[in-house]
């Protein structure tokens, strides 16, 4: 078991190195010279050459890569061409907001997806209609849902806000920098409810697509499991159908759904970037969107690395979870 975990960690490190390499290669392909862009259009050739030498851009590629990785390990992700600050600093400022949004969306997606999967797998009335509705929701791009959500809940009903993280003036900048958690820790329930209200619309928009996918996979897996011989045995014992579903079928159906969750985390990042733009959510996504038109590649590279590392970490955890949950695999 331990050796399995070590192997997965080693694989994770390998993938991260590959990711860094890919980003590094892409960096070499950008049409704009980062140094030129940093110094401005009027800089002379000599100044540019000197700056290039200072920053080590004229070294052979392989040693540049090694320096790059070493720098990454120290948290150095170069300078943003747009904000003129170290990318790492920028990310540090914007990451907590995205983290809070992503966590909220993940929890919502898993809960929603789980409920949907179970509800549509059992032969409850109206399951067919529900399926079509879900299919419709799964086919909607997240920005459409966001726009419709704003039109309905903000413009028409006025229940939820449309921008930002909080409407309260003095916010506790507590230990975690996740507004909801900090608010609870400081006992500020007004901040807590306000932050939640701001989270609902963007969070659900990010969560619906993944929730549908997870729900569909769970449903399909449950339907298959409900046809197995051991479920027939459970029924032959005279157990109630709900017990058969929850106690016998569910645990054996989780595998594919867990894998899908891991996959969806990666897809959720793209959703987060889009949603943050629409709701002006001050997170990494907004940062990325602002960097794209300016071709601020170091910033985009930094975002890719951070989000990529998060994705790989989550999937490794899921892999380990899956294997430990199945008693048939002897480790």
């Amino acid at each position, binding site marked *: 078991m331990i050796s399995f975990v070590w192997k997965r960690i080693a694989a994770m490190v390998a993938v991260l190195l590959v990711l860094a390499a890919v980003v590094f290669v892409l960096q070499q392909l950008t049409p704009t010279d980062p140094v030129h862009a940093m110094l401005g259009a009027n800089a002379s050739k000599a100044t540019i050459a000197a700056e290039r030498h200072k920053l080590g851009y004229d070294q052979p590629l392989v040693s540049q890569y090694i320096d790059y990785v070493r720098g990454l390990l120290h948290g150095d992700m170069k300078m943003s061409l747009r904000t003129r600050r170290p990318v790492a600093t920028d990310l540090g400022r914007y990451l907590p907001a995205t983290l809070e949004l992503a966590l909220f969306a993940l929890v919502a997606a898993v809960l929603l997806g789980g409920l949907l999967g179970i509800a549509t797998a059992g032969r409850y009335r109206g399951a067919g209609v529900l399926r079509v509705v879900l299919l419709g929701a799964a*086919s909607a791009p997240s920005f*459409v849902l966001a726009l419709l959500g704003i039109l309905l809940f903000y413009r028409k009903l006025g229940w939820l806000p449309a921008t930002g993280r909080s409407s309260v003036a003095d916010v506790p900048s507590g230990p975690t920098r996740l507004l909801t958690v900090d608010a609870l820790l400081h006992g500020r329930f007004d901040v807590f409810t306000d932050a939640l209200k701001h989270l609902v619309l963007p969070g659900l928009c990010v969560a619906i697509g993944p929730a549908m996918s997870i729900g569909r996979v769970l449903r399909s897996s449950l339907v298959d499991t409900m046809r197995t011989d051991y479920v027939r045995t459970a029924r032959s014992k005279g157990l109630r159908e709900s017990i058969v579903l929850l106690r016998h079928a569910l645990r054996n159906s989780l595998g594919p759904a867990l894998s899908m969750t891991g996959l969806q985390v990666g897809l959720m990042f793209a959703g987060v970037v889009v949603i943050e733009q629409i709701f002006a959510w001050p997170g990494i996504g907004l940062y990325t969107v602002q960097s794209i038109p300016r071709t601020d*590649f170091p910033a985009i590279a930094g975002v890719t690395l951070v989000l990529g590392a998060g994705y790989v970490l989550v999937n490794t955890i899921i892999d380990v979870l899956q294997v430990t949950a199945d008693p048939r695999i002897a480790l």
Partner: protein
Amino acid sequence: MTAVASEQAITTTGPAGAGRPLVAIADLHVTFQRRGRDVRALRGVDLTIAPGEILGVVGESGSGKSVLGLSMLGLLPTEPAPTIEGGIEVCGVDLLRADHDERRRLRRRHLGAVFQDPMTSLNPTMRVGRQLAEVAGTESEAIRLLDAVGVPEPKRRLRSFPHELSGGLRQRVMIAMAVAGEPSLVVADEPTTALDVTVQAQILELLAHLRDELHCSFVLVTHDLGVAAQVSDRIAVLYGGRLAEVGRASDVLNRPAHPYTIGLLRSRLTLDARRVGPLPTLVGEPPDPRAHPPGCAFAPRCTVRTDDCDTAPPVLVSAIRHAGTAACIRLDTPVAEPEASSMVWPPVAAEPGVVPAVRLTAVFKDFTLKQGWRKRDTLHALRGIDLEIAEGEAVALVGESGCGKSTLLRAVAGLHDIDDGAIALGPGARPQMVFQDAGASLTPWLTVGELIGERLRSEGLGRAERDARVLESLRLVGLPAEVAGAKAGQLSGGQRQRVALARATVVPPEVLLCDEPTSALDVSLAATVLNLLGRLRRELGMAMLFVTHDLGAARVVADRIAVMYQGEIVEVGPAEQIATAPTHPYTRALLAAVPGITVPDVEPPVAAEAAVARGDGAPKAKPVEPVGPPSKDRFGRKRRGRRRPRVAALDAVALAAVLVVTLMVFVTPWLAPHSATRPIGEAFLHPFHGSVFGTDEVGRDVFSRVLFGLRTSWLAALVVIASGVLIGGIIGLVAGATGGLVDNVLMRITDAFLSLPGPILAIAVVAALGPSLWHTLLAVMIVWWPFYARIVRGEIRALAARPHLEAARLAGVGRVRLAVRHLLPGAIPATVVTASLDVGNLVLTLAALSFLGLGAPAPAPELGAMAARGLPYLLEQWWVPIIPGLAVMFLALVSNLAGDGLRDLMGER
């Protein structure tokens, strides 16, 4: 027994002393719907079961025996639900009128079930103790039950998982679960079929023992008369969905009345069956449940049939020869012993000086069970085998599961390498194999003619000559010429077996290898196949190596028998001698465990009273009636099932919509009144005030821009999918087909790509290269292909493990042809389904990327970009960002629905 006495004998309720019957089934009809056709599993069954008796229900495939067992449990499948007519009352509960909850409570309190395969019938992730406690209630009760069924160390076993127990132990656990609630009735559906012969005997004994202790009734559903004979009090024989004969076990087995039972008993491979010539057989095959003959289902195969037999299915009447009942109008005609075939086969023995067909010298083979990279365990499959098979000789390898007989067979075939020793083959053609599951050994999408013809490719024959040889080989195995154009799925089990034989013998090999060729067949067919094997090998002069666990079959087919145990040959000698008077203790144990039908004959009891006491047979003895509407007896209940349409209406609409959208790609310029890049008009015209969907922020017609946008999105998605499938498919095919190092390397690369977060990477790639439509497509393609590589490779690997690929390899098919004709077509359905389901995702991803500004720069009509640019106008001129967004949604929805529909369509096939 006279007809009058028999009428008095048979009533629905027994006399006060014996109590009411536990189970009363009256004219039960169960019909399923499969692909639009009626499958009539039960066609009017009348049966009662008394408390405390063991009833053996014997039948072959298509007889409906499993359906009968499941009906008694109230466990017939519900999706799709079958149509049930007639009456079935179990423990006083009318199963047709009862609702779901009532039936469940009945199962909980009064019923128990034991199913065929204990590995799949126990929850693999739940401990045995917990599964048992669900019915037993407490842990101490569970321990007591495990003890009662003979599980050693019960307290420790409570914490085991099912896969940690042997097959026999698992079945004992299932039996414990079945009897835990002190049921009145236990239905056991083929409880011993998946077990070894020695374990089988023990399990049957256990059932009888439990009946004595608990006084519950058992219904033992089985295809093997021998198994039923061992423990049953009464035996009911099912054929073609109706009862053929019911009576006391000793009566049915010693004085069978129905011609089918007689034929079945005669074609059993007992240890005193004839072996010097062809066996007596039942011609033909059991009827297809989708197409029953109008009269007696057995008539086509019956030797005493008359024209009256074809008018209506006969009802149960008194069986003249014993106290039970049989459904036949010709009971007074004796069924003659089939003419002992005058053919006598000369014995075959090794001739000195002639090169043997196969010679195995000190053959060793180990399997290492690997865990990832590390070696975990070594399985010594073959431990020093010495065997010689003379030219034209038939040798049977007998042993239980795990003894290594299949490994040996495959080693001779060349499918396994051996670690030590030598296998020397004679000078003739390469060995050919007949697999256990003949159907699985035939590539499903090629016709019979193509499959057989493949073996003739290297003979250098012209097309016409090849076809003639194919037809000749079919004739030799007794198949009509039309079969050559059919595919494996269209043939019955027996026909598939013959096709496999034809393929193996069209170019007669030096030695024919048979892997349990009869174990998957009905008993009545087995004798026919064995006769065919015997005749073929003598006509074509082939040697034969025949693997089986059935001593009876081995004795009939082989000249010599070799007994294997744990990788070694423990005894070898002439067939008759080994089968009747073996010397090795293991062989003797095997022999003792063979279920024979030595049930002591009991004199028919005086009468009527005894028969009444048991409630034998049908409620009423009716004369033969023309088939009319189902009679309404005291239940007269009918439950209808639902008929599912083949393709849902919604999916059909979606498929149509996809076609329309694809068409639109070409006709957009004619459809859109304004070009997407036409000079600017008035900004913000409300929908329908100047143009259909209004105008966007720069005054261009939203409708035409959306149409052009749809075109771009659809084309882009199709391009990416096509290239992803192509690249991924090729890589997957190469990896899957090649295996080994190439597979490993390719899959590592694929996994690395898959481990990276796709969309983020796509953003980074486009950001690096600069925003443009082609860069976006390239970026997405880079992210998408690994997905398909994985799928195609997975499908290919799954196919590669299937017998039909091995069979094709043995038939001498070359590597390229193997990959293209035998592997690839099997991977296509899964790939197509995945691709069709994926298009929706792709549309959404491309739209999101263009929303972020990573697609073509303005004023190109990309839907996502249109929505993004319209964002500031959301609150006042809502249509500017919303309508492009809805267009994306429409495209994705249509793709998803069509993909679902395509998947359902292909799944049905």
